């Protein structure tokens, strides 16, 4: 008996494992979306109203997700917090032509309660202020460094010296500031809104404000290119645009 049962069990196991990778129970195809951490709330809300497929998300720093695609991972959609990463992947032939689908605003997040050590951009340069930022490679970190590069040299240098953690994505910055581990952090205005009262935002002067444009593209070699294209289209025309707007994102540049 054992002689026949063993192999059968093994085959069943393999079939089960392979089966688990396919579509989901209600028969809709599963569209996998790799998206910038800052898009979490907006995309999860969009995913609920997206009819063409069951959208599943992987949120992380855009640079990490881009590196995964370069290393041969094929999600169906890539959505980044800049246009540089999708453009590069397009030039490498890894994704279809990207579309700009939203804009955002960089702000300084501070804890909503407790001692208000930081009330303006200039306060960040004071000695002893602890700042959390994205690492230089993740968009939110590179935007922050652009802001600092626009400041008088000493001030920019002092603020840079106060950065105590280079987080892999904006979620890490939000966590450090809302827990009080850092006094302030560079995040997007949408993150402060999503934090629901735990954070307050201190604005960055318009003259220093970087241009934050989000780009998305269908990944070549993904399993469901049609549904992926529908998902990307919806970001600028349909339910996706509404979800982004509700989360505080601005419309894409015309």
């Amino acid at each position: 008996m054992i002689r026949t049962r063993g192999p059968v069990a093994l085959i069943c196991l393999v079939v089960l494992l392979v089966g688990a990778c396919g579509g989901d129970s209600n028969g809709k195809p599963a569209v996998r979306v790799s998206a910038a951490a800052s898009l979490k709330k907006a995309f999860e809300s969009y995913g609920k109203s997206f009819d063409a497929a069951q959208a599943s998300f992987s949120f992380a720093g855009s640079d990490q997700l881009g590196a995964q695609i370069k290393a041969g991972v094929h999600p169906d959609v890539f959505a980044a917090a800049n246009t540089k990463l999708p453009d590069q992947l397009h030039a490498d032939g890894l994704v279809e032509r990207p579309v700009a689908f939203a804009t955002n605003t960089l702000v300084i997040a501070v804890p909503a309660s407790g001692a208000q050590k930081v009330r303006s951009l200039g306060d960040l340069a004071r000695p002893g202020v602890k700042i959390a930022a994205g690492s230089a490679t993740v968009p939110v970190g590179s935007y922050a460094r652009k802001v600092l590069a626009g400041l008088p040299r000493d001030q920019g240098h002092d603020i840079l010296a106060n950065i105590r953690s280079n987080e892999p994505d904006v979620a890490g910055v939000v966590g450090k500031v809302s827990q009080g581990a850092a006094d302030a952090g560079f995040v997007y205005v949408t993150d402060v809104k999503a934090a629901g009262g735990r954070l307050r935002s201190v604005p960055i002067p318009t003259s220093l404000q970087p241009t934050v444009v989000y780009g998305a593209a269908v990944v070549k070699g993904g399993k469901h290119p049609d549904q992926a294209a529908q998902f990307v289209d919806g970001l600028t025309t349909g339910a996706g645009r509404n979800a982004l707007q509700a989360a505080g994102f601005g419309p894409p540049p015309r």
Partner: protein
Amino acid sequence: MAFRALLVTALAVVITFLFLPVVAIFVDVGLGPLVSSIGDPVAVDALRLSLVTTGISLAIVLIFGTPAAWFLARREFRGRAALLTVIELPLILPPAAAGIGLLAALGPAGLLGDELDAFGIVLPLSTAGVVVALTFVSSPFFIRQAEAAFGSLDESLLAASRTLGASEARTFARIAIPVALPALGTGAALAWGRALGEFGATLMFAGSFRGVTQTAPLAIYEQFSTDFTAALALSAVLVALSGAILLSVKLLTAR
């Protein structure tokens, strides 16, 4: 015959699955680029910090863990089993949960935040915070091993020490520790290995800053997005260190 074939197939699958990623780290870009990437300043800083923080963490684990394990092994008291379970919990606790727990306990807004602040102690975003995270996740590996070793000591040996008039402290230092040394060494090696690989709790509690809180696993994650070869090189060093740790465990337990 069919069963034998099945066994061989299963073993081949297991070996390939477990071995391939480790081999790939060394052969994906070749040894040349790997070796030249090891001198990368980010990698050097990260490795140095990893060695310093895991060393301090291991010292703390040994100093507090050894007597604690002795107490747990040599005393009968109510709730002992429950206490052992609590001590072992970090073994299987998700690192992210450990990181959140440390922030909720020792962060500025945490349970002991005001008390720590009164003493001027700031753990998050500091090297001390890394040590705390490493100690939290790695200490059960040592304590569990030490408790088992002290619990299975030859009773006649301890009785003889007592009969000759030695105090418990003397018996502990002169008999128990030397006899249990191989097992203690194994526990220490396992704890060190766990600390060396720590990622999630460190990132959440201590953050990531080169030379201050960015240990080798955090540097691998950061470099992945920009320099895959450098990330591989740093991984290769950790694989070699982990291999050495495992080998020393095997040698210690084989005695």
